[in-house]
Each structure stands twice: as structure tokens, then as C-alpha cells.
């Protein structure tokens, strides 16, 4: 039981518990807090995989900006807890096993086809930020410019949508 495997299982357990808590909580603000826990656990997993820049960006952008947006909207549109309406018992009893079966199928398919990959993520080197940035600005410069344009469009769209009707 080496240290990386122990850390992996701890972080994976935190992530899965956070995701289960997202489903089971009644008030959306608690679901949002659970999702933040999942994101921080995933940032830890990225660090374990050696990509330090992606881990930092995950916390800064996802955990510090996108989830803050969610939390603000939940606090402002305070709709209260979810009501309990049971439309169909079949959906509950057949639906959850089905969803988990889908996940299992996807996972099994990927695991089976990736058995030719190197057995372990054995590179002990961290990904250099310089390497990443060289890639972004030379090979992936076209998607980079497109996503910048996409964000500009999203900002304009959000401003137009949030205006008061005069």
C-alpha cells in the first residue's frame, strides 16, 4: 500500500461521497457545497497525476468562479427545499440500477480497450507549465482564439439576458 494509492483512494472516496451528497441533499445550496467538495477532490487527483497547472486552474476557475456563480444564483432565487412528489415508483427502482449499469458499461468498455496502455501512470515528472503554454500558443492557437471569442459572446449574452425589462 504505497502512499500514492492511499491518497488516490482517499480523494476518490471524497469525490464519490460529494457526488452522492449532491443527489441526496434537499436544498440546492447544500448540493452546491457538495459539488465544490467534488471539484477540490478532483483538483487533488490532478495534482496526484502530476498536472499542477490544471489543478490550480480547476480550483481558480471552476471552484472560485463558476461555482460562486451557482451559489449566488441559488441565494438570490431562494426557492427553498425541493418538494417530494413521487410520480412513479418504477422510475426509482428501475432507473438507478439502469444508470449505474450505463456507467459500468462505459467503464468496462474503456478499461478493456485501454489494457494496452502503459500499466501505471508512472511518470514522476510534473507537467511543465511552459510545455503547456507552448502547445496552447502554437499547435492549439485556433481553438484558443475560438474559445476566447466564445467567452466574449457569453459575456454579451449574459449582460443582455440579465437586463431589466424597461
Amino acid at each position: 500500500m504505497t502512499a500514492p494509492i492511499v491518497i488516490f483512494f482517499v480523494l476518490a472516496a471524497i469525490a464519490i461521497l460529494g457526488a452522492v451528497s449532491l443527489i441526496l441533499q434537499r436544498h440546492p445550496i447544500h448540493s452546491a457545497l457538495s459539488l465544490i467538495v467534488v471539484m477540490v477532490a478532483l483538483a487533488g487527483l490532478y495534482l496526484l497525476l502530476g498536472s499542477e497547472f490544471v489543478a490550480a486552474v480547476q480550483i481558480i476557475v471552476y471552484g472560485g468562479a463558476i461555482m460562486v456563480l451557482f451559489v449566488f444564483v441559488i441565494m438570490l432565487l431562494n426557492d427553498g427545499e425541493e418538494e417530494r412528489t413521487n410520480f412513479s415508483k418504477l422510475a426509482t427502482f428501475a432507473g438507478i440500477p439502469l444508470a449505474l449499469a450505463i456507467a459500468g458499461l462505459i467503464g468496462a468498455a474503456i478499461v478493456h480497450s485501454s489494457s494496452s496502455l502503459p500499466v501505471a501512470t508512472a511518470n514522476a515528472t510534473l507537467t511543465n507549465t511552459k510545455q503547456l503554454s507552448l502547445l496552447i500558443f502554437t499547435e492549439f492557437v485556433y481553438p484558443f482564439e475560438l474559445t476566447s471569442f466564445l467567452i466574449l459572446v457569453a459575456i454579451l449574452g449574459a449582460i443582455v439576458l440579465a437586463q431589466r425589462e424597461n
Partner: protein
Amino acid sequence: MVPTNYYVILSAILFGLGIVAFIFKRNIITIFMAIELMLNAVNLAFVAFSRALGKPDGEVFVLFVIVVAAAEAAVGLGIIILTARNRRSLNVERANLLKL
């Protein structure tokens, strides 16, 4: 070190939990958060494969996925705020008629 398969299985489990949350929750914002959870699961798979193959291309793609998720969250929440103002409820089961 940790085998790549472990990360992929974790990613599949998180994706499945995201699907379960998407189907079973009734608050529109919680459903949106389930979409974010699914995107995160996919990001984890990207980074794991990028490390296994030794190239940083997967991590670059993760950055793009994060950016797209941010743009989608901003516009999506704007639309949600507008519809919630009109219908006065965030429950998706109450939004089953075209008429308000």
C-alpha cells in the same frame, strides 16, 4: 504509482452519478450542477490519459473544456433567472406547459 484504469473507473462512476442526479432532481439549478459534474468526470479521464500517453495535449484540452463550461454556466444561469422570474418557480415539473 496508480494504474490508469483506476482513474478511468472513477471517472465513469462520477459520470454515472451525474446522470442519476440529472434524471432524478427537480430543481433546474441542481440539474445544471449535475451537468457540471459530468464535465468534471470527463476532464479527469482526459488528464489521466494524457499522463498515461506522456503527452500534454490532453491537459490543454481540459483547459478548453473548463472554458466552455464557464461560458455555458454563465449563459445558462442567465436563462434560468429569466424563466424563474416569469414562472416564479424553479421546479422543472411545473414547466410542462408552453403557457406560463
